[in-house]
């Protein structure tokens, strides 16, 4: 691992100031993704600003919902009674992710910011537009670095929203649940604080796959807000993977459904493992409202969610897998 300097922040404002004071600085909290990437020389910061001592780990009621501090550990959030009662979908998704050790270390803010990635991003001998962006984007002489996954071994890669630059998927289970829960990310930075709806927080790759999120340089995530849905409903996180535990999703579905007398009143469907960000189409959810909670309705919605799916050489199976997983998840929450 390359050498770097280290500074510890005691207040959010100090953290933002410390990060801005030196280029090539990064925040570190749980470090589960960052330290790993530094060992592979994928990330090479000159300085780490330790934010793990900031007072941002509380989980508390807010505006009828919950405010979860950015430094709350994934394991603490999954075990929290308020979370389990009001947002069991989040607890379910968190427990589907990583290993017990990693969940003990990983923070909520860090999970939001874990890199959207694939094996080619990790392998510094392979071309990767995300790890090593082409020079001077926007310049006529712009040359992309290339993508090892396109034309390579791409079984785990994206089928939706990908670009010529990048077909990696966001590996977080938590992010998929947050997408279905209409979470809002609270951030603070040199220019003050702002709120970012979860669906706008993560990006599709386009021509700038190096940017996973819309977070600006020097901005710090302080909390994740979960608003309470107007009506309750049942939820389920269905994760399909190559082994029973401790594996990334090939496809996952965070589903939330409110039904009354067999009719759908409200629906949320977010997909993981299929795109550069959690995949959710509110317009499809709206078409489900007022329809019967039947397999036919679910299949129509699933197909609409997957319309435009573009498989690569080894991952066409994900389209049918996702369709079936969506139907299964919706059947689970409507039964």
């Amino acid at each position, binding site marked *: 691992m390359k050498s770097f300097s280290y500074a510890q922040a005691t207040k959010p404002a100090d953290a933002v100031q410390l990060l801005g004071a030196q280029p*090539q600085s990064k925040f570190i909290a749980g470090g589960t993704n960052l330290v*790993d990437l530094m060992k592979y020389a994928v990330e090479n910061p000159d300085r*780490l600003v330790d934010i793990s001592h900031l007072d941002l780990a509380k989980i508390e009621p807010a505006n009828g919902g919950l405010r979860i501090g950015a430094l709350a550990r994934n394991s603490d959030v999954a075990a929290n009674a308020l979370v389990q009662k009001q947002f069991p979908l989040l607890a379910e998704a968190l427990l589907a992710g990583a*290993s*017990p*050790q*990693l969940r*003990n*270390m990983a923070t909520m803010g860090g999970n939001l910011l874990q890199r959207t990635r694939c094996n080619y991003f990790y392998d510094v001998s392979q071309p990767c537009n995300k790890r090593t962006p082409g020079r001077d984007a926007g310049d006529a002489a712009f040359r992309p670095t290339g993508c090892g996954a396109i034309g390579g071994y791409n079984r785990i890669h994206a089928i939706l929203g990908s670009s010529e630059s990048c077909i990696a998927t966001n590996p977080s289970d938590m992010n998929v649940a947050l997408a279905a829960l209409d979470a809002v990310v609270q951030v603070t930075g040199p220019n003050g604080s702002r709120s970012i709806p979860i669906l706008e927080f993560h990006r599709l790759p386009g021509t700038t796959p190096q940017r996973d999120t819309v977070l600006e340089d020097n901005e710090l995530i302080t909390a994740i807000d979960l608003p309470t849905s107007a009506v309750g409903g049942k939820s389920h996180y269905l994760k399909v993977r190559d082994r029973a535990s401790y594996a990334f999703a090939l496809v996952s579905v965070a589903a939330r459904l409110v039904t009354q007398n067999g009719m759908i009143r409200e629906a949320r469907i977010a997909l993981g493992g299929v795109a550069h960000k959690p995949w959710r189409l509110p317009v499809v959810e709206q078409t489900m409202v007022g329809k019967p909670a039947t397999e036919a309705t679910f299949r129509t919605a699933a197909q609409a969610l997957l319309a435009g799916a573009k498989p690569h050489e080894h991952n066409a199976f994900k389209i049918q897998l996702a369709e079936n997983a969506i139907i299964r998840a919706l059947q689970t929450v409507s039964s």
Partner: protein
Amino acid sequence: MIPAEPAVDATQKQAITLKVNKKTYRLDAEPRETLLDVLRERLDLTGSKKGCDHGQCGACTVHVDGRTANACLLLAVMQQGREITTIEGLAPAGKTNGQEQLHPLQAAFVKHDGLQCGYCTPGQIMSGVAVLRDGHADSPADIREWMSGNICRCGAYAGIVAAIESVKKGDTIG
């Protein structure tokens, strides 16, 4: 690309204090030194093993403030003020009839053949102790799920699950 010039103070060691197995250690460390490397290379606590060094295999599992963590992904400089427990700190101190004592789960691993080569065993036992302590050992399926962060390439899983189950049933966990 790795920049040619590191930050000015990047390679400078700084004095850190670590509390491991109830002992206090003071040493100079670079920010990039992981807890695992410090334990093994600097403090001569070689029980925690380096398997993958990427948080995937669990051989380096230690307890930090009573919770399992992958020591290979922790920076030592960030662990100051925390209570670290390694496999060396698990058994009760002192001897009985001239014999060093084992933690009940260590004894159960011996009894149930919870190992073959033994390399993953310290991590397995540190995770197993947490699984028992946190109430995740109610069934073999529960144990397997909550032990999923520890890989055994010899495939001693049946013995590992049996060892944890036996301590759960005997209710002798400390």
